[in-house]
């Protein structure tokens, strides 16, 4: 029945992404233990070896393993002939070692028979070159035939393993990434545009195609490109890619969900800032967000890593999994240096602190041949532990010890940073200054905010914002009507909204907002941007919050409401910007909007953020934590609070908790905790009587 649905779906492709929001999802899982494991590829090894691998995993306190994600050629050796026996054995053997299984659908690696028989399923690169067998991810994401074949394998796997008690979840595909530029994609892009705009005249109007005589007479004239085109086309291409990947995932969700017990979650593993599609949209069809956390140069950036964890937690606004991380080092950077001793453990605990409920290493053991022979692994070529094993084992033991206390807990934030794919894309299409980096805008705010607020949510601008005292929106370049409505409602009800430079320049079609920045928020702000400037050297700035300098970007602001307030002014030496407002603030409803038109230096940024938080009554969870130490809080309604402390610095640090509690890793009580470099403490606060 499901397959017939899938077939029907492909007769009317566009149907699929309309039903995403109505898709069945797994029941919100009950409090789960912390999971700790690795990606394991039993299909690469003789079966008599499996038990030794699983025993070593169990010895490392691993309780989950991810299998099968690239095993299509082993699962379906020839078309329609499925062989699940080996996987049955692997799942059963894992159970014997108290190791649960996450099954991957193998669609990131179509077998050779498939692409030879159905060459139209092969991806075409933007330069027109068709991908071929021998690598992975060489399929076209719009290919009907590929959808049929991938639904079929997913369905067969679900029918076979959907009720296996040792299978706890599903991962669809792997690191969805490359779009295809084949004729099928072109045709579907045109269909997608037709659906969005209705008539070609409407598209021409909203894309302003009279410019350069771009005017289209019909949808099929529209080129398919990801760069160098009309900004509206580029943004729509990204949305089309998003919808197509959403539909690609839904195709398999539809095959799995009706055949799997409700407790089995469905996820996919994504990649940090990856800009190929809108991750908020993609996760609508999924139960759980999961991501792959890597530092190819072997140097953990704890702030960036915190940002990325919070970003992923924001995909579904709930706890997430780290589906892959490096056991020491990777193989794809310029110099694949290893994380120093202790940092692999530090990363695992930072993930948990930010809401991860599972950490998996990639990979357990390297295949003897294949493109990733040099990737870090937990056991070596000979199948015995490599040096990192001991650190992973220690981390596993710690996860086991704290699992009960952490089950069902999650971070709770009262401040949020808005992260918008549309804005990120719109800026990247037209950077105007090569130094303007959207990700840096987010991390710069985060860096300043983190010690002051300690828990931060990173969210889509369309998320429900009512619970937040302060919302930061750096470089919110694209503000659609719906987003404007959401933000205005938030402010009216008492929220504090702080907009950063380049905000509100574009509408939902990536067209310029005719009201000037910040577009639909200009009236509420009581001011607007009179002109923007890319800076090639810093400019001085002063105001009630202090003095400093700005670089990269500066906007001249102008007041339109008499009760709007100037917070900062450019110095008299600033040329076009001399003595002009750089930041303004305006009360609106029960809240207020602040617009900061320049990229502030960190000192000034700190003053601004401190002032805003102070006004909004946001206090740190625990004051006086040393700068090198990160505090992360997880809690559950009615349960105890857990504080995870990590010393990211090089020296030893001491933390005073000021509250009774127990450090769970050592079992020690007492309010003073000493943390060596890379040290971790998991402090369970005593419940108040």
């Amino acid at each position, binding site marked *: 029945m499901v397959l017939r649905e899938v077939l029907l779906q492909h007769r009317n492709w566009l149907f699929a992404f309309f039903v995403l929001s109505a898709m069945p999802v797994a029941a919100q899982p009950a409090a789960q233990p912390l999971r700790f494991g690795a990606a394991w*590829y039993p*299909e*690469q090894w003789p079966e008599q070896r499996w038990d030794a691998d699983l025993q070593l995993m169990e010895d490392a306190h691993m309780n989950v393993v991810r299998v099968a994600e*690239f*095993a*299509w*050629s*082993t699962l379906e*050796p*020839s078309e329609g002939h499925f062989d699940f026996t080996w996987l049955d054995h692997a799942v059963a053997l894992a159970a014997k070692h108290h190791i649960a299984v996450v099954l991957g659908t*193998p669609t990131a*690696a*179509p*077998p*050779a*028979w498939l*692409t*030879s028989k159905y060459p139209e399923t092969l991806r075409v690169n933007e*330069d027109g*070159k068709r991908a*071929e*067998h*021998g*690598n*992975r991810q060489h399929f076209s994401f719009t290919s009907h035939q590929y959808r049929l074949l991938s639904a079929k394998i997913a369905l067969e796997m679900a029918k076979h393993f959907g009720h296996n008690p040792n299978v706890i979840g599903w991962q669809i595909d792997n690191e969805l990434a490359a779009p295809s530029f084949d004729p099928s994609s072109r045709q579907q892009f045109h269909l997608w545009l037709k659906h969005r705009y209705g008539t070609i005249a409407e598209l021409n109007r909203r894309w302003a195609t009279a410019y350069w005589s771009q005017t289209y007479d019909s949808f099929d004239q529209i080129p398919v490109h990801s760069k160098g085109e009309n900004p509206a086309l580029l943004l729509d291409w990204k949305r089309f890619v998003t919808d197509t990947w959403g539909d690609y995932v839904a195709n398999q969700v539809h095959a799995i969900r009706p055949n799997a017990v409700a407790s089995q979650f469905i996820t996919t593993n994504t990649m940090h800032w990856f800009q190929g599609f809108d991750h908020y949209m993609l996760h609508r069809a999924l139960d759980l967000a999961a991501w792959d956390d890597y530092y190819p*140069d*072997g*140097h953990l950036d704890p702030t960036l890593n915190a940002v990325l964890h919070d970003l992923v937690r924001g995909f579904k606004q709930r706890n997430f999994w780290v589906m892959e991380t490096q056991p*020491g*080092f990777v*193989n794809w950077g*310029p*110099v*694949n*240096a*290893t994380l*120093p*001793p*202790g940092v692999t453990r530090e990363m695992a605990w930072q993930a948990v602190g930010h809401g991860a409920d599972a950490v998996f290493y990639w990979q357990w053991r*390297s*295949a*003897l*041949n*294949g*493109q*990733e*022979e*040099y990737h870090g692994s937990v056991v*070596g*070529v*000979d*199948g015995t532990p*490599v*040096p*990192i094993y001991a650190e992973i084992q220690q981390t596993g033991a710690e996860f086991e010890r704290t699992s009960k206390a952490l089950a069902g807990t999650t971070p709770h934030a009262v401040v949020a940073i808005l992260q918008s794919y549309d804005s990120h894309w719109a800026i990247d299409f037209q950077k105007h200054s090569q130094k303007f980096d959207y990700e840096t805008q987010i991390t710069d705010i985060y860096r300043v905010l983190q010690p002051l607020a300690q828990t931060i949510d990173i969210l889509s601008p369309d998320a429900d914002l009512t619970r937040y005292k302060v919302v930061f929106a750096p470089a919110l370049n694209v503000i659609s009507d719906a987003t404007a409505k959401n933000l205005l409602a938030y402010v009216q009800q008492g929220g504090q909204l702080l907009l950063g430079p380049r905000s509100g320049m574009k509408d939902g079609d990536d067209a310029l907002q005719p009201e000037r920045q910040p577009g639909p928020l200009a009236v509420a702000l009581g001011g607007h941007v009179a002109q923007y400037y890319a800076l090639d050297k810093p400019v001085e700035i002063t105001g009630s919050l202090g003095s400093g300098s700005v670089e990269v970007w500066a906007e001249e602001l102008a007041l339109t409401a008499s009760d709007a307030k100037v917070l900062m002014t450019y110095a008299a030496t600033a040329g076009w910007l001399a003595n002009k407002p750089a930041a303004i603030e305006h009360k609106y409803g029960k809240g207020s909007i602040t617009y900061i038109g320049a990229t502030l230096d960190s000192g000034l940024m700190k003053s601004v953020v401190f002032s805003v938080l102070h006004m909004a009554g946001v206090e740190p969870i625990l004051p006086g934590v040393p700068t090198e130490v990160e505090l992360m809080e997880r809690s559950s309604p009615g349960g105890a609070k857990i504080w995870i402390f990590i010393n990211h610095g090089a020296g030893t640090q001491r933390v005073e908790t000021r509250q009774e509690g127990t450090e769970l890793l050592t079992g020690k009580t007492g309010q003073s905790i000493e943390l060596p470099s890379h040290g971790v403490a998991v402090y369970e606060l005593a419940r108040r009587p």
Partner: protein
Amino acid sequence: VRPVRRVLVTWLFLGALSVEAQSSKPYVTPNAPLLGSAWYPEQWPESRWDADLALMEQAHMNVVRVGEFAWSTMEPSEGHYDLDWLDRVITLAGKHHLAVVIGTPTDAPPAWLSTKYPDTLGMNADGRYREHGGRRQFNYASPRYRHLCALIVTQMARRFGHNPNIIGWQIGNEYTDESFDPATRAQFQHFLETRYKTLDNLNRQWSTAYWSQTYTAWEQIPLVNTNGNPGLLLEHKHFVTATWRSLQREQIDILRPAILPSQFITTNIGGLAWSDNWDHYAMTADLDLASWDDYVGQGHLQSARNAMLNDFVRGWRRQNFWVMETQPGSVNWAPINNALAPGETRSLAWQAIGHGADAVLYWQWRDALNGQEQYHGAIAGPDGKPLPIYSEIQQLGRDLELARSVIADTVPHAEIAILHDYDSRWAIDFQPHSREYDQQQVLVRFYAPLQELAHSIDVIQPMTNLDGYKLLVAPSLNVIPQYLANHLLAWVQAGGHLLLGPRSGMKDEFNSLNPQCQPGPLAAPLGGRVEQYYALDQPVSIGKGTADIWGEQLSAIAPDTTVDLMYGAGNGWLEGKPAMIARVIGKGSISYLGTLPDEAAMRTLLTAAAQNAHTTVSTDSVPKDVELCIRSNAARTITILINHSSSLQHATLEGRYRSLFPDVSVVSNANTTTVQLSSQGIAVLEVSR
């Protein structure tokens, strides 16, 4: 021309990977060392030729290379040959006492050929066909192209094969570009089928369960040179080697029966000898003589590097060689094409001779008035008159007239060899893991101190007769299959001392990981192994020095395996762990060094290794900037001193010597001789009798 369906199997597979020399007798260059240049009479009116040849003769040149790109002049239209002009060229050269090396013109097919037979055009890896207007547009695997080559070569062989003024033949020019067209792909698949016999075997050796790469038909296997399975990439290199070799073999098979036995057959190898497009040992095995194109490009002569490259070239056939091209001052293809300083061009030539070159030819005599290389250094200017470099080359000509009688028929001899192996080169370059790991620089780090110790070093491939060497140093012998391990062990048992450098023994002949841990099949004899490798982004301390780029944690397992060096601080994983281990085996020993020590530490370590191996250590006192080379035969020993600096230097040698150059000051006492070398000065010395 009828399409020729040669049986590809014979030329592709017969001994394609064997490096056994086809001609057993070493070629001895008469009247060595020769001096000459490349000359293109077809680019000039015949009335000019005599003036050019007279200028060559005045520069004491005695060889000229012609014909290599002249196909369109030799065969202006299909089947119409005009070789009369070339006959006149050879005769005229003879009048000026210039011997001729004649090139087959198959590196530059004429326009009529590419137009009439577009199937002879090669396809680049990006899927685009090459076209006429550059050179090397041909498809090296095309049977039709090879047939067309055979026709012109046959004509040339008939016409010139018995011309006494021709001393040798050069096939093509700097074999470079492979082809990725469908026909070549089919040949590659056939090559694999011949090599692996069954797909099961190939799937196993390539671990294709990884990423579902599993092949179920030979036709599914792609032809790629990047991002493929490491096993596939290695086989592509083998295929490229076999294909070029068969192209060359076809011309040899036409020439050899038709030409005088005294005429040698060579090809000039480009890529600064170091390019790894194909296996140079295999390619030169079928030739009488190895020759290469020695260019500095940007910057100045790096003496150790260029010394190593000359020794590397000598190692291809383990015989003296030719420098078929070198720069008269400057080139045109570097980012900045600076000229060599006065004296450096002469030093470069003498260095080559010191390392076994029996001829030095400049590229080129005079620049064509149009064409892609107008800016290349030349000896005569666009007006046909000598350029400033002419007098330096003329001085070299005078040098050679003074030294020729004693240098001819001498060769360098070494007790120490550095092992270089293409499978290892390729395997590391496919997966460098650190971009800092430059194999040439790694090799020079071992070579330079060894050269200081012993003056003469061989660079050879390991699967060759190793008798006569006392010490073998293998800087990055990444691929060690069982057969190579056996070969090396037999030599060690008999008294050889083998020093393996980092990354050794990781892979087998299929580029698959050796499951024993490094150094693979040598781990058991070594009684120790690599526990983990690390790409280093900062130096670590070892003993009294430092090491960088790569660090392996070693362990000594056998009780008689000694730890010779330990890591100190700098990397938490390596600190306190063995960096070098060694074990006595039979009458010899194996040592394993897991990192790249700095210059001083490397010198200390290699000095100890040389002493341990009882190699002859030079007692001559030679300043750092002065290079000492020795060529000898049963009758005499010639010492060449090259001052690579621009200051006055003195070298003191054991024994009594006479200088062959009247302007070089030599002072001897009872047992020693002191030589004074001016800036960029050269001394050629013979032991006084």
